[in-house]
């Protein structure tokens, strides 16, 4: 029983690994954000709560995907080369010392797209294949060698 469960888990993990390895994440805003392009440093500042304002002057609203989503783990690995546990430790320090708050975590991609549609300062990340005309790509990770 346990063995079967572990095998199952391994298969799922492998599947996730494969998915993340092939996903190409891009950072997006809505068309009214006033932002054409962000640098990686700017994306880091927005997502790590150091500076929450878009270069256009709008208050930024960074949005995370759900805590379990492989895209989320992949996003932070590519952004700051950190594991989900390290990101959690980082926010624990700030949340329990009255600092800035972590990005809002959406339930799913549809909610993310809806939030971006309704908030000009909203910013999110998605696989490139899910980007449609309602979204504008403002940052692409440099190709991994």
């Amino acid at each position, binding site marked *: 029983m346990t063995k079967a469960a572990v095998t199952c888990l391994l298969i799922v993990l492998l599947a996730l690994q494969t998915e993340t390895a092939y996903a190409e994440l891009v950072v997006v805003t809505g068309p009214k954000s006033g932002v054409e392009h962000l640098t990686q*440093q700017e994306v880091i*500042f927005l997502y790590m709560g*150091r*500076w*929450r*304002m878009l270069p256009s002057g709008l*208050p930024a*609203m960074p949005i995370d995907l759900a805590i379990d989503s492989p895209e989320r783990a992949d996003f932070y690995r590519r952004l*700051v*080369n*950190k*594991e*989900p*546990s*390290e990101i*959690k*430790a*980082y926010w*624990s*320090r700030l*949340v*329990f*010392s*009255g600092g*800035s*708050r972590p990005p*809002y975590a*959406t339930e799913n991609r549809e*909610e993310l797209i809806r*939030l971006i549609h*309704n*908030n000009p300062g909203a910013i999110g990340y998605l696989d490139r294949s899910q980007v449609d005309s309602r979204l504008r790509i403002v940052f692409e990770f440099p190709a991994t060698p």
Partner: protein
Amino acid sequence: MRCWLLSACFGLTLFSGSGMAEMETPESRFELSGFGTLGVAQTDTNKVRFIRDQTQPEGIGNKLDARTDSLIGLQAYFRATDSLEFVTQAISRYGPHDDFRPEISWAFAKYAINSNNLVLRGGRLGMELYMLADSRHVGYSYLTVRPPVDFFGLLAFHYIDGADLVGTMPIGEGVLKIKGFAGQANELAPIGNDFLSLRGNPMYGMYADYQEGHWQWRATYAQMTFKHDLPPPIATLQAGLYATNIPSAAATANSMALTDTTSRFYSLGAVYDKGPLLVQAMLSQVEHESHIYENTQAGYLITGYRVGELTPFAAYSWSKSKSRHLSSGLPDIPPFAPLNTGLQGVQGRVHTDQHTYTLGSRWDFRRNAALKAQVDFIRGKPESVFLYPGASPGQFDGKMNVYSLALDFVF
């Protein structure tokens, strides 16, 4: 005060209702969360007792003990409007009263005067006397089992009742943050079976912090003015010195007084954080106007490197104080001899001169929990006893190993 805050909060909630219509803010308005540590530790000697910081009246010896590091904290967060938040946090830990009685560690209103550029907080605030000093209880947020004792162990306070103002602005490729704070320390510091009251002690401070790329730099200045004096045996000794009616003895007693003297805290901190590699270094200089405490320099360096779920780390820390060589000017004959002995004893107990090598590992074995194991090799002079409650010089040889295991979690 509380009433006023509540009504202000209520008023602002109503007021903000209309303005928020066009912007959708999905975040929950109310959030309960918490953190904790289940930790055991023991040393290899019973000659002196090891504590985490000066707020713990009793330390641990060569038997496993859960008091040093175990704690639990609960936090309530309420967002009244986009620019007004309230946070209250209570912590139960082994503290000044020799028990785990819970205490309100944070209780403040946070108002964003200008989006996130300028933020005002008022109420009870964690004291950011040194970088990271305001999150010392959140074990899950750092690598080691506890903040380096040579550095943070010298402190006897955790919060101020007052206000702080933080300005943030992008400069160059990085972000500059300037914070000023003012308020009162309101805690009690255990001294033997008695307390030094810090109630109403005015505290001020400020820091400048710059973050760019993988680096973070911080310079901090803070000061506290004492409003109370030390309890016996120091009070008794002072009374004895005054009673001699000899000017030199009275002058020494005067110089040992704490009331209306100021202690100043200077510190520099740097962090290099690049993916799996973390390096953190801090230096501090503490200067006391009162001659009852010795001016102290302390510092530490921690480095860790994550490998999968494990993050092994190594640290070096030290603290060194400068002896004052107080003298009563009284001859070493009866009835003065006991006063001279007492004076020497009092001075001996405030000296520190030690360094610590630390090796350990953090294991992020599951979400929101980490297990840590650590060994501290404390190597000091036999006179280095300030960090051990009730200890006198020569009571041990200055060497001590501390073995610690801790489970840190957040929820």
